[in-house]
């Protein structure tokens, strides 16, 4: 057959390899995060904010909705009211704790919903390609023709205020970008030979997507979704600021900022408080998603 001796280089019985601890992808991500103190600090901060919102009924020193005309607009660090009182004499610290519930819900829930729905459309578009891709992605392009704030104001402005409408609005606003990220990631995975190998073994599309595609697009989609939490919080508080959020007696950071603004000349520092909470939460989420992105950027 050939002039090359058949067994010039014999096959070793086993491949020599240095013994090493085998670490899964998520294991190595965590290993990187462990030494990223900024991210860990922000993560702790987020957990703290979430806990304080969850346990608001136990933590709040006063009833957040009880107004007291005699104690309107007390300054910050007042002996009785740590963060002062608002224009109706309600304890601001209590309102901040309760307000965090709505604001955090508006930061997280729309992102979760949009990741599920947008991710689904993105995976379908990316995997099937062709006409399916065109219909889905061109529809998304139309939504991209609106700056996100404008789209949120448009939908929310038409639907009217209220917590459900706000959540619906934010979900619709966040679906297109998540869909695009999922689509890009999926179509990249789709070109990989291991997908063809799976098809060659007779696997159904559903099986290939669940075993081979999702596991590979998870990290880019999650990293992107985590950046959107802060976007969602800011958008939500913006909508509330415009009066498109929860109805007035309920505490919400954006709405509080809006109503306190009337008192800017009387007690300017108190006016700034709700915004500080929004800012800190938003920065924490941004830095955590930055850290996640770096930790997940594993060449594997």
């Amino acid at each position, binding site marked *: 057959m050939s002039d090359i001796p058949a067994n010039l280089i014999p096959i070793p019985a086993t491949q020599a390899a240095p013994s090493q601890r085998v670490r899964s992808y998520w294991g190595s991500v965590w290993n990187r995060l462990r030494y990223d103190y900024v991210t860990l600090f922000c993560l702790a901060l987020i957990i703290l904010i979430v806990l304080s919102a969850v346990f608001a009924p136990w933590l709040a020193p006063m009833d957040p909705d009880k107004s007291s005309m005699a104690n309107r607009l007390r300054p910050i660090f007042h002996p009785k009211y740590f963060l002062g009182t608002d224009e109706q004499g309600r304890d601001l610290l209590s309102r901040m704790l309760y307000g965090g519930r709505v604001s955090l819900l508006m930061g997280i829930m729309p992102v979760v919903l949009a990741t599920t729905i947008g991710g689904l459309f993105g995976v379908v578009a990316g995997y099937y390609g062709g006409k399916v891709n065109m219909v889905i992605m061109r529809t998304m392009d*139309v939504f991209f023709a609106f*700056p*996100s704030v404008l789209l949120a*104001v*448009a939908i929310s402005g038409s639907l009217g205020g209220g917590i459900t409408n706000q959540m619906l609005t934010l979900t619709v606003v966040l679906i297109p970008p998540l869909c695009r990220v999922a689509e890009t990631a999926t179509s990249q995975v789709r070109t990989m030979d291991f997908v063809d190998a799976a098809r060659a073994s007779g696997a159904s599309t559903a099986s290939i997507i669940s075993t081979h595609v999702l596991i590979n697009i998870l990290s880019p989609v999650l990293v992107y979704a985590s950046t959107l939490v802060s976007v969602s919080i800011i958008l939500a508080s913006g909508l509330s*600021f415009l009066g498109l959020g929860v109805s007035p007696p309920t505490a919400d950071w954006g709405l509080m900022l809006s109503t306190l603004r009337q008192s800017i000349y009387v007690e*300017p520092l108190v006016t700034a408080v709700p915004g500080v909470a929004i*800012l800190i939460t938003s920065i924490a989420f941004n830095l955590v998603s*930055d850290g996640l992105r770096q930790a997940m950027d594993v060449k594997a």
Partner: protein
Amino acid sequence: MWLYALRRLVLTLPILFGVTVICFALVQIAPGDPIQNLLSPTASQEDADRLRAAYGLDQPLPIQYFIWIAKVLRGDLGMSIANNAPVATEVFRAFGNTITIALISVALAFVLSMILGVIAAYRSGSIVDKLITAVAVFGISVPTFWLGVVLVIVFAVNMFWLPATGMGASGSETFNYFNWEDFKFAIMPIIALALPPLGIMTRTTRASLAEILNQDFVQTLRAKGLSETAVMFHAVRNIMPQAVAMLGLQLGYLIGGSVLVETVFTWPGTGFLLNKAILTRDIPLLQGTILVLATVFVLINLVVDLAQSVIDPRIKRA
């Protein structure tokens, strides 16, 4: 080049069509029956039907859409409910105020972000870099309306340096940007608007510069004995197409996203108009303003794409 421009233009048409569909849908998703609002409470069902027919609201939705779009194409955006004025007139009057401060803000943010981005990339890892990164994160994370409130607290309430809100005594008709007494009113809105794009653009500039500086050709430039300034010049030239694209996109975001800042400063632009429309539930005004702003955003993207294909020699799209 011309073929590419034409192709890009053709591709924009379906997007614009989609934009009009969404704007049309805004009226449909709004709760309440527009006819009931127009009628007196004592009006009969026949009166309601007659009015419905007169407005074409008894037609199926696609027909209603075509009636509406035909009007829009003639420049008729309907009548504002609140003050019974044509929406088109209101929007275009306000648009001038918005575009001017948006342009100034984005230009300011662009120049600053290039400077900060270059410094941060050049001194990568240093304190200066960390400081600049912190400013960028702040810019991205800060809610602009709160920033506006804080600016008012500091510069208007505490220091009396700048006027808190409005466009000054002269008003929007005679506002002169080259007159300091007038321009004072625009300063805080411009700063509040400029900070988020400044954050985003600084970060992107820094990241793409750092990537370029890691490439082999930069090593070659250094090996040839070029000074660091000259090397940086090469690197900056490489990120220009990207930076220009970013600039356009941010301008679009500012024009569309100015509603909060304009509300805080009662700056009579399109954003303030939107706020008014929301407060009075003036759906035609809301719809018309959004349609104009989204169309402008699409056109800005188109111009950016075309500009990019001129600047970037690698894009030879025929």
